[in-house]
């Protein structure tokens, strides 16, 4: 293998890693804002991703059946619907279940795990155990070849763009919106936030729902790189947790950096090693770094 071929493979695996990066980042973002705001570890987060993926599938089928001419465009609407559905289910889950269990971390862990199993069963009963794939618009398929022997998949770039947009949106919301101010005040000091007039419980519900909605968008992105089954989301939950822990739970920038690192290590080494060896390598790297920096990659530098 010549050096330039090596380089091309390196680049292509790197771009393939970007899709994984996107899904992990979106998953990690949602987990991180939920954990940051309420200390809840949402074991059902993967299922909210699955909601997003199935939404794309449903809308794809609907479009094909009733309005085949719209097939090139449905994807954009479907992403928004994926967010809204996951958001709505998250809102209800918080209201019905999670809010009764705050300050009981073990109970929330169990409850969200139970929720995850329940949701998987609902997916199975509704869509069947077999994996499904939406018909992706023509323009998402294929690849872009800027140089001889170098193929960069379009879907990867699209998903990447989508992720950047959502991430920027989350940052903007957190630092420029009233909701963001409420969240950051509550994270900083819940009792005091309430005593200055912030309805912290309503803020909790909103945050949980937004986190779930972002997972729904992750699910939409996921459909471009894999097919959707009832347990698709649960396959990503461990990696998403890794992203959050590794990045430092309090830091969104850390989440971005660690999602990138994990996805790239995984994707690039996967080409040269077997899948499970690549995973071992990724885990080893993470554990080593966490041993040196137990607070995660990024930590806040402010007097508390």
């Amino acid at each position, binding site marked *: 293998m010549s050096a330039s071929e090596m380089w091309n493979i390196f680049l292509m695996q790197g771009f393939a890693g970007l899709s994984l990066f996107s899904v992990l980042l979106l998953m990690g973002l949602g987990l991180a804002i939920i954990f940051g705001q309420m200390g809840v570890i949402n074991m059902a987060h993967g299922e909210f991703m699955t909601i997003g993926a199935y939404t794309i599938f449903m809308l794809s089928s609907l479009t094909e059946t009733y309005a085949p001419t719209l097939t090139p465009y449905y994807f954009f609407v479907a992403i928004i619907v994926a967010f809204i559905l996951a958001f709505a289910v998250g809102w209800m889950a918080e209201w019905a279940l999670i809010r009764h269990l705050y300050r009981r971390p073990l109970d929330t862990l169990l409850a969200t795990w139970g929720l995850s199993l329940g949701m998987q069963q609902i997916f199975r009963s509704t869509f069947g155990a077999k994996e499904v794939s939406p018909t992706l618009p023509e323009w998402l398929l294929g690849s872009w070849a800027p140089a001889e022997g170098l193929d960069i998949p379009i879907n990867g770039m699209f998903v990447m763009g989508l992720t950047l947009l959502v991430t920027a949106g989350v940052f903007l919301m957190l630092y420029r919106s009233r909701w963001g101010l*409420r969240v950051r005040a509550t994270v900083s000091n819940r009792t005091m936030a309430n005593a200055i*007039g912030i309805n912290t419980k309503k803020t909790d519900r909103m945050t949980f729902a937004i986190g779930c909605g972002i997972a729904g968008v992750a699910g939409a992105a996921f459909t471009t790189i894999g097919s959707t089954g009832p347990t698709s989301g649960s396959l990503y939950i461990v990696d998403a947790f890794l992203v959050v822990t590794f990045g430092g739970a309090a830091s969104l920038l850390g989440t971005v950096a660690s999602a990138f690192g994990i996805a790239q290590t995984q994707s690039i080494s996967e080409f040269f090693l077997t899948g499970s060896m690549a995973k071992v390598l990724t885990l080893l790297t993470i554990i080593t770094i966490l041993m040196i920096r137990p607070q995660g990659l990024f930590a*806040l530098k402010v007097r508390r």
Partner: protein
Amino acid sequence: MSGTAMLNVNDLFVSYGQSQAIHGISFGANRNETVAVMGRNGMGKTTLFKALMGVLPLKGGKVEVDGVDLSREESFRRVAGGIGYVPQGRMIFPTLTVEENLKTGLENAKNKEIPEEIYALFPVLFEMRKRKGGNLSGGQQQQLAIGRALVTNPKVLLLDEPTEGIQPSIIKDIAKALNEIRKLREITIVVSEQVLSFALDVADRLFVIEGGRLVHESTRANIDADRIKQYLSV
């Protein structure tokens, strides 16, 4: 107390689990009046204030602001009902900028801009508005905590030991600010204190709290300073 008082506290009981800390406190405070609650460490000042704010639940009794019973409300509703809170230890949000700290108090305001008046009262907050709250000095944080409470446009402002751990020159500034606030807004101010000179600078009436009960009351005009000093010394 008369029913026309802005703040009406009636037979308040508060406990930590099995141990009762406030044993039936009643007092009132009028519009445009400042009252001080004096007491040594551990006498129940913070417990009383937290109960007024809804941070601690009441075991019994009633808290009324401007004729509205807030006794069962969550803290954020009491803010809407007109109570502003400056807790002991200031409790500003360290990770938020000064400006953002002030904005947290605008939850019920129609105009979400920080009123000019706050910066006029505490010019240092304007200079530092882009800094993280956690990087301010203790005295500056105290001014921020007062500013943040004022932004909520309270009818009753509660300040729990605002002079604790603050150097004398800044204590003077805070006393001046409190008097200024009262002149500007004609609100009710309730302040807890261990420093008699500060209380005399700001308060129209003084109470002494001991072991979770009010044991003494006097107006500033008729104050028996030696008696209060005795309560405050160990």
